[in-house]
């Protein structure tokens, strides 16, 4: 549990004079579920873009999966998975075609893609859907599949950017079971969410406000520290002082 897969020290990201990330420092361990919370505009997206190799930090030290964010963005991209709130699957392609496409993009061998495909279909009881279009699937299934595709190439870290937006509570619950299962395989989960009940499921959470990390600890410790009974109350106390 102690191997660090994300290492961020004194990260600063500026857009002209606007400071989006102000001196962030944190570490995330292998297999950890790390919740990344904050109000809209707090700077979460900027941090995720830097961590996923899409944009370069202005200053500070950033290492993801052991690679440097300034010089090894390509290496970082190979070792992470990504799923965002909007759907990351192509609706006019079948389940199988989507999986083959993403497997191919990540440079997986054909035999390996085939193997993972049948594992996946079996695990999710998806066999009958193999040749169905994504647009024919119910929302919950699509989301599970999108997540499975994001971890298809067994990345070291998977970034989930509000993965459960617009989904009913039962499906969300099931989705989190999948997340737990994935984390137990040693894949680090870096998740942003607006649902505070989901924050309770995380191993550790950080809360951002105006470009700074204002709290970072396990949900239990934070609740104790602020003397409240839920993460939601912690969040409200911090974000709206």
């Amino acid at each position, binding site marked *: 549990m102690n191997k660090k897969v994300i290492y961020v020290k004194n990260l600063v990201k500026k*857009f002209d004079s606007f400071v989006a990330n102000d001196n962030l420092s944190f570490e995330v361990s292998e297999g950890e579920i790390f919740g990344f919370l904050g109000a809209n505009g707090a700077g979460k997206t900027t941090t995720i873009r830097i961590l*996923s*190799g*899409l*944009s*370069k930090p202005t200053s500070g030290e950033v290492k993801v999966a052991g690679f440097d964010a300034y010089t090894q963005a*390509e290496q970082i*991209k*190979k070792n*992470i998975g*990504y*799923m*965002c*709130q*909007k*759907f*990351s*699957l*192509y*609706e*006019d*392609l079948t389940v199988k*075609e989507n999986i*083959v*496409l*993403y497997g*191919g*993009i*990540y*440079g997986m061998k054909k035999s390996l893609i085939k193997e993972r495909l049948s594992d996946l279909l079996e695990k999710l009881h998806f066999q009958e859907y193999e040749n169905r279009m994504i647009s024919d699937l119910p929302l919950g299934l699509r989301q599970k599949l999108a997540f499975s595709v994001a971890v298809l190439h067994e990345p070291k870290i998977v*970034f989930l950017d509000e993965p459960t937006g617009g989904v009913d509570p039962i499906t969300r619950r099931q989705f989190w079971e999948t997340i737990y299962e994935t984390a137990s395989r040693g894949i680090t989960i870096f998740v942003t969410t607006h649902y505070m009940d989901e924050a309770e499921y995380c191993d550790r959470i950080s809360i951002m406000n105006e470009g700074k990390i204002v709290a970072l600890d396990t949900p239990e410790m934070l609740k104790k520290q602020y003397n409240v009974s839920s993460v939601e109350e912690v969040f409200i106390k911090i974000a709206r002082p």
Partner: protein
Amino acid sequence: MKRFLGFVKKEFLHIFRDYRTLFILFGIPAAQILIFGYAVSTDIRNAGVAVLDLSHDEVTTKLTDKIMSSGFFKRTETLLNYNDIDKVFKKGKTKAVIVFEEGFGKKLINEGKASLSIIADGSEPNTATLITNYTTAIVNDFTTDLAGPSRNNSLRISPEVKMFYNPGLKSHYMFVPGVVTLILILICALMTSVTITREKEFGTMEVLLVSPLRPIQIILGKVTPYFILSFINVLLILGLSWLVFGLPVKGSIILLLAECMLYILMSLSLGILISTVSDNMQQAIFISLIGLMLPTVLLSGFIFPIENMPKIYDYVSSILPPRYFIVIIKNIMIKGTGIMYIWKETLILIIMTLVFIGLSVRKFKIRLE
């Protein structure tokens, strides 16, 4: 490379699964060629003409027969007096009335002079002008014949007009190059901008950018299928215009295809540029259609000659790529010229392509930052 090919394959799947895309790609060009070639013809064939013959003699009968047998006209009605002219025009089928004055034949033979009026329906100015020109030509011809050798002594210059490159003055010589120009820029720019903004809108672009695919691979992967399909489109249009209208390619077919490829490339990079400035598909469609279709039809020299436009439109038109491609394609197809005469236009298209690509890359980078 394998990653790239998988990505290209996916793009083909998108295209072949979407009937609307397929229709726009292949249905519209074929329809345009046929519509422009047949319906929007500026030639005259079987135009309705009525005759008001107040003289009824040998000469008028002969002249009427000559006019009607020319193939350009079809006799609709025979009128009896002037009041009928208005009525017959209102019925719609008649586009012109030929009026012979009373005693036409006698006057012509005795006085050497007789008058004939051609009254045309001015509500359709183009047709009216054409009909009067054609009729005048036939009448002149007739009088020359009638005069015969007996009036040889009077000096007379008879100019013989010849239309070089297009002896029959067929309008599809003008329309086919124009349609190729219009279709290619519309389809390439529209399709590329829509397909890229679609990825943005559905959130799949984010996922692609986070993947090990490089941005340049993503863009190339998206436009490669359109490049191939547009090229097939060129072959389709040229084949169709050859089969249906018998329009040949006078110059080098290889040069023509190479120029088409350049033009497709230019249109695709324009499409990429449009996609970098538009946030959603509606915006991309709007910019492509309004921003490209109207100027191409009106200002590129497709239909209206640039030389006749006010200077200001001339300047506006000089930033439109279609203007240069029309010159290129007309030269190769109809005049049969080689690269020597069109290198300037070709160079301009190459520069435009590079500028569009350069601007897109810059825009794209800013977005990534």
